[in-house]
């Protein structure tokens, strides 16, 4: 019963959000604000459980893992942001977080996003069939010309300008592909909502 009633409520709220398509209206605004409140409430419970209980109070106070204490203290410093006079204290937490992330990011990102990608761009004449080799060369030309396009330390004139114009052509093809996939993604989300209204809702109403 609660499940069926829930689907009915969900369908009404779905229609309230869809009503924006006609024009802005109080039903849409009410649904939007309710969504913000409910989702913030949902998230904060998980944040609290995951960060405070599971990663801090349970290990520290039940399992004696006292070395987690500095993490908790650093985390509490972030709340000093709420008062302008003490906001500078939160910088310690932010500096800690951002610097730690920066530290382990450097070698991994260089390896996986840069070096491995460069290696994947170099054609292997010994292994590839003629068509594959031609396509590898095409990718090499594309990547190199795009990197030239993003090189801003010299004016894009002469040979540099011509190469960067080739880069723009590859970028446009890539943006086109992104656009095609974006349309696909958005339509899929709409299909999901219509499946909810045309499949789940009648089933639930039938059971009520």
């Amino acid at each position, binding site marked *: 019963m609660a499940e069926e009633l829930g*689907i009915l409520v*969900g369908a009404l709220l*779905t229609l309230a*959000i869809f009503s*924006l*398509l006609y024009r802005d209206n109080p039903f849409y605004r009410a649904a*939007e604000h*309710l*969504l*913000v*409140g*409910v989702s*913030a*409430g*949902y998230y*904060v*419970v998980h944040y*609290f459980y*995951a*960060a405070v209980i599971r*990663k801090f109070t349970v290990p520290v106070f039940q399992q004696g893992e006292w070395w*987690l204490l500095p*993490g*908790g203290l650093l*985390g*509490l410093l972030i*709340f000093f942001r709420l008062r302008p006079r003490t906001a500078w204290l939160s910088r310690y937490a932010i*500096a*800690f977080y*951002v610097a*730690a992330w*920066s*530290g382990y*990011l*450097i*070698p*991994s*990102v260089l390896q996986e996003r*840069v070096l491995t*990608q460069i290696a994947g761009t170099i054609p292997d004449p010994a292994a590839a069939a003629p068509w594959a080799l031609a396509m590898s060369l*095409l*990718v090499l*030309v*594309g*990547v190199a010309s795009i990197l030239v396009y*993003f090189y801003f330390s010299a004016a894009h004139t002469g040979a540099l300008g011509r190469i960067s114009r080739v880069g723009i*052509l*590859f*970028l446009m*093809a*890539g*943006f*086109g*592909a992104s*656009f095609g996939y974006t*349309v696909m993604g*958005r339509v899929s*989300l*709409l299909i999901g909502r219509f499946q*909810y209204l045309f499949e789940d809702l009648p089933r639930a109403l039938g059971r009520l």
Partner: protein
Amino acid sequence: MKRTGPVLLGFVIGMLMLVQHFTPDRWIAERYNNILDWKQVVFGLTLILGVVSLFLYHWRRIARREEGWRYSLLTVGGLAFMIGAAILFTPSRGPYPWMFEHVQAPMQSTLFALLAFYVASASYRAFRARNLHAALLLSAGVIVMLGRVPLGEAIGLNHISTWILDYPNLAAKRGVMIGVGLGMTATAIKIILGIERTYLGRGA
């Protein structure tokens, strides 16, 4: 204390996290694990601060009876209800998961589904083959759009769309990826060395 302290802390922590990648030293490995654990706690509490800020914003709107304050009642009410439900009934059963499944999930997914309408409208109104570059973007978009669905597969467009995705698209994404990767690395080095401080806020 207000400026140098955080930058110094950032330098020490950043260098330690960088160095651990290149050394098997046990002491450093243990500190690295400690820092990863602390980082998760700090991140979780930062997210909680975000929710507290959201609450305070709407609370002030209600207290001052600002325009639209009645809508803020719904936000604050929804937030309070979810926290109360999780405390009274536990997060695993009762109204808390029900509200997620039947209030949050339908609305959140519908809000994103609206974009299908707007993307169609934008395609009609703004997607113009004004020049060679726009025509190239438009052609690639149309071919990929049709080639990735059964209708396009029936007329053989999937082969062309696969070619676009596998080669020109791959080159475009990789070029951007390498550029961004180098940019991320440079920014990370500047953060550790204290050259980049804007993330600490005004006056840092």
